[in-house]
C-alpha cells in the first residue's frame, strides 16, 4: 500500500513538472534575445560581474558587491540612467561570459574581461577602462625583480586560465606550475610556503593583497609580464551601447571617480596602477 501511495505521489509530481515545462516551452520567446535592448525603459539593468575576485568584483558577507569592476559598472549604469538599486548583478564565470552576452542574459559584462581578437569574434567590447599586467604575488620580502628568475620558481594559477597558459607557453616554460580551482586555493599554498608565487593579472593579485587578513603578508613583484586591456563586454556589434559606455568611461576618468575607485579598492596593496587607458576606436 505504501508503495502505491508513493508511486501515485511521484507520478502526479512528474505530471505536474512535465506540464510546467511544456507550458514554459510553448510560450513565445520574449525574454531570450530581447533582454539586452530592454534598457531604454529605465527600469532595471543586468550586469555580469565576478563574485570571487577581491578588489574587482566580490560578493561580501553583507550580500553586497564590492570592487573596482563593480564601481565602474555602477558608474556606467548611472550615466545610462539606472539608479544603483535598479542594477542586478549576475555572476559571470569566465567560461560563460560570451554566452551570457550572446543570449542577452546580461546587458553588459564588467568582469576582468581582457579584450582579445578571439573574443571579439563573438562579442564586442567598450573601453578599455583599465590596463592590467600579468604579475606575481609573493610573500613579503621574497619578491623577484626580473623575468629570468621566474623559471626557478614554483607558481600557482587558476586551472585553464590565460595566465596559466602564458606561463607555460611564453615567459617561464621551465617554472613549476600548479593549477588550482580558485585563487584562494593558490593563496593557501603561498601562505604555507608550498608555492613561491601566485600569478595572474596584477589587479586581481592586488585585490587579494589588500584584503584585511592579508595586509602585509604578500607583495606584488611588479613585473609587467603581459598587457591585459579590460573591456566592458557588450553584445556583438551593438555600436550604440558601445558609444554610450565609452562616453561614460571617459566621463568617469575625467571627473576623478575613476582614480577614486582605484584608490579605494587597491589602496592598501601598494599597487601602482597604470593611468586610465585611452579608449580604443574599436568598431
Amino acid at each position, binding site marked *: 500500500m505504501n508503495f502505491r501511495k508513493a508511486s501515485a505521489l511521484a507520478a502526479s509530481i512528474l505530471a505536474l513538472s512535465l506540464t510546467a515545462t511544456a507550458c514554459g516551452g510553448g510560450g513565445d520567446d520574449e525574454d531570450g534575445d530581447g533582454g539586452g535592448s530592454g534598457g531604454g525603459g529605465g527600469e532595471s539593468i543586468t550586469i555580469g560581474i565576478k563574485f570571487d575576485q577581491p578588489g574587482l568584483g566580490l560578493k561580501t558577507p553583507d550580500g553586497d558587491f564590492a570592487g573596482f569592476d563593480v564601481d565602474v559598472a555602477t558608474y556606467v549604469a548611472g550615466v545610462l540612467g539606472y539608479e544603483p538599486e535598479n542594477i542586478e548583478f549576475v555572476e559571470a564565470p*569566465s*567560461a560563460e561570459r*560570451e554566452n551570457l552576452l550572446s543570449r542577452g542574459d546580461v546587458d553588459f559584462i564588467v568582469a576582468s574581461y581582457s579584450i582579445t581578437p*578571439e573574443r571579439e569574434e563573438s*562579442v564586442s567590447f567598450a573601453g578599455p577602462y583599465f590596463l592590467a599586467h600579468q604579475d606575481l604575488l609573493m610573500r613579503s620580502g621574497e619578491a623577484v625583480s626580473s623575468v629570468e628568475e621566474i623559471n626557478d620558481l614554483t607558481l600557482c594559477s587558476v586551472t585553464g586560465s*590565460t595566465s596559466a597558459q602564458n606561463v607555460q607557453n611564453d615567459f617561464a616554460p621551465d617554472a613549476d606550475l600548479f*593549477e*588550482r*580551482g580558485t585563487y584562494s586555493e593558490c593563496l593557501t*599554498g603561498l601562505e604555507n610556503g608550498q608555492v613561491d608565487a601566485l600569478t595572474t593579472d596584477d589587479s586581481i593579485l592586488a585585490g587579494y593583497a589588500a584584503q584585511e587578513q592579508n595586509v602585509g603578508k604578500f607583495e606584488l613583484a611588479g613585473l609587467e609580464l603581459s598587457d591585459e586591456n579590460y573591456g566592458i563586454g557588450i553584445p556583438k556589434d551593438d555600436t550604440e551601447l558601445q558609444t554610450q559606455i565609452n562616453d561614460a568611461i571617459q566621463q568617469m576618468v575625467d571627473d576623478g571617480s575613476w582614480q577614486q575607485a582605484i584608490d579605494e579598492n587597491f589602496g592598501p596593496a601598494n599597487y601602482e596602477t597604470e593611468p586610465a587607458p585611452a579608449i580604443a576606436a574599436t568598431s
Partner: protein
Amino acid sequence: MFDFLDLERYDLFGVFWTTIQLTVYSAIGSLIWGTILAGMRVSPVPIMRGFATVYVNLLRNTPLTLIIVFCSLGLNQTLGVTMFTDGDPEPTNFRLAVLGFIVYTATFVCEAIRSGINTVPVGQAEAARAIGLPFTQVLGTIVLPQAFRAVIAPLANVLIALTKNTTVAAAIGVAEASLLMKEMIENEAQTIPIALVFAFGFIILTLPMGLFLGWVANRMAVKR
C-alpha cells in the same frame, strides 16, 4: 563550426590518453583498496569493522571535487606530501588525483563486493570453515572469488562512473580532457561545439566499456 579544432595547438589525443591513464591507475588502486575495505567490513576484529564502516560513510557522502581538492590543498599544499615525486607539479598532481579517485571509488567497490558476498550461499562459507580454513582463506579462496563473479555488472558501472569522474581532476590542474576543454572555451569562446567534441570523446571511451563488461557479466554470472 569546428574550425577551432587545431590539433597542433590543442593536444586532443594527449589529454584523452591522460584520462585513460587516470582511469586505469585509479581503477586498479580502488579495486585493491576496496577489496581490503570489504574484507575489513566483514572481519572478526571489531575496530576494523568500525573503521571501514565510518570510512565508507564519510568518503562516499563527500563530493568528489572536495576530496580531490583536499588531496591537493591539504596533503600537498599544507602537509607537503609530494607522492614520491621531486615536487614537479605534473606528476605530483597526477598522483594526488589518482589517490583521490582511489580513496573515493574504493567505497563504491567495497559496497559492491560486500553485497556480492551476500549473494554467496551460506553453505559455501560453512563448508570452508568445516574443513578448517581460517578467516583469510574462507574469504580469499572461497567467498570472494564467487562474490566477484556476481558483482561484475555493478563494478562495470563503477568503472564507467570513474572514467567520467576523472574530469574532476581538472580542479587541481591535471591535464586531462576537461582541462583542455576549459582552456579551449576560454580561448575560443565557443562553448557548445567544443563541448560536443569532448562529449563524443567520452562516448567513445565509456560506451564500448559498458557494452563489453555487460557481456562479460552475463557470461560470468553464477547461475543459481
